[in-house]
């Protein structure tokens, strides 16, 4: 199985629902939560309960949700703390915090139940520009390939070389990334020929 596919599970009840519906629902919840003016905190219970009710239908493990929320929290807290440095800042601080976490949670539910392939299909139906669609599709296809290549190269370099100075480490990392770019360019050339052979454009 494609490693990327593991991100979204086919077993959850909501995974079978129309992806357009899921995208629109997520967009609706996030827009209403994030963009409306700050309101009494009690009103945030409405999106919160909606998301909690949807959660069982998505079968997203609690540990995964907590882990991803914690990753997002570093940045959310960073900005939220900046907003604290002004008089009477507590409402702004708390509402930003609640808003962000609710939105991240709804994005997590969406990404858990909707494979990226379906999102691409939906974007195609919405007449997203063709160049962007091709780019997104190719990127999605070759992410694991290039990721594996990166890991292989860094493993090989780690086993062969070491650097005393930090600049040396940076130089060897830069060499890996440069090599990765060259290999990507070569691969793009081969892909182009293969696509032409199959009647692209």
């Amino acid at each position, binding site marked *: 199985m494609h490693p990327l596919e593991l991100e979204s599970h086919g077993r959850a009840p909501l995974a079978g629902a129309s992806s357009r519906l899921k995208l629109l629902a997520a967009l609706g919840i996030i827009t209403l939560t994030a963009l409306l003016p700050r309101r009494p905190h009690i009103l945030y219970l409405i999106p919160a309960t909606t998301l909690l009710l949807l959660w069982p239908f998505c079968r997203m493990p609690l540990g995964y949700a907590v882990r991803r929320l914690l990753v997002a929290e570093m940045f959310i807290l960073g900005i939220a703390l900046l907003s604290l440095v002004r008089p009477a800042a507590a409402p702004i601080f708390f509402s930003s915090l609640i808003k962000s976490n609710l939105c991240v949670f709804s*994005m*997590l539910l969406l990404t858990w139940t909707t494979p990226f392939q379906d999102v691409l299909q939906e974007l195609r139906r919405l007449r997203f520009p063709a160049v962007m669609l091709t780019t997104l599709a190719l990127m999605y296809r070759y992410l694991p390939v290039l990721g594996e290549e990166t890991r292989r190269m860094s493993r090989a370099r780690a086993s062969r070389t070491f650097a005393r100075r930090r600049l040396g480490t940076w130089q060897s990392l830069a060499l890996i990334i440069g090599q990765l770019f060259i290999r990507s360019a070569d691969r793009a050339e081969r892909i182009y020929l293969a696509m032409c052979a199959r009647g692209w454009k």
Partner: protein
Amino acid sequence: MVWSCDWEPAEHKQMHLPDGFLDAKTALLSSGVGVAGVGLALRQVGNSVQSRQMPMLGLGAAFVFAAQMLNFPIAGGTSGHLVGGVLAAILLGPSAAVLVMTCVLIVQCLMFADGGLTALGANVFNMAVVNVVGGYFVFKLLRSVIRMEQHRATVFAAAFAGWFGTVLGAVVCAGELAFSNTVPWSIAFPAMANVHMLVGIGEGLATGLIVLAVLRARPQLVPSGRDAGFTLRSGALGYGLLICLGLTLFVAPFACPWPDSLEAIGARLGLPSQTTAAPLAGYRFPLIGSATVATAVAGAVGTIIAFIAAYALARAVVPVFGAPKKDASTGT
């Protein structure tokens, strides 16, 4: 779960805005300029890029994403990763880089819930338009001005442009936060600018070294100065106008030390008069002058330091052969 363990974008060194920090007007305005930038890039790519290079956009996006996985050690066990916007612009050209970075942001948002959906437009504008094109402007300018051996000039310009693009994107990000009244400008600007002046050093260093690595292994992959001009025909005017528009919208209202500029602009745009902000105005006024001026001074000093550092890097890592009189001491 192999994917999410190994690939999790664990460290947020980038200025990905999450949902909930921008208000509706800022989200709409920044999406507007972001979409305009992407539209301009689409037109340019449609005009100038041959279909042969089309797969390179997808592979370039995957390349940027994969390069972001590698951690560069900084100090005391912390590490950061590349953002890669300016790098992509140098290697692929500015318009292609705008599309590539936009796709990276879309995938990060829709596949990894990294960066907000309502903030996607703002993130695209900051990191795929301002960072990429602003950095590329500086790169082209420096490389055409500087009289150095060609590889050296390229590495120097790339390193400085990487730093500059990062700082410029962060300043616009601070402006968006202040414009949506989430974080006061007197806090957001110094915090974002100072942090990213430091972060940008790493980005610039990595950009310069990677460009050099590609130059040494496959020089024809780096478009050289003459054949890849950034002229009016390739959208320089449009991009320049867009960036200026963004700076005017999000940064200019605050950069002015007079306290009434924000309200004047708000009134001109037909926004409701800021009764809630009124008690804060008196508080903000004394701070804005000092903090903004101090950060501006720090920015000027930082620019000079980054400039010298980029120059030193280029001299250190690119030995010039055949000129022993001048460069005998710089070989590494």
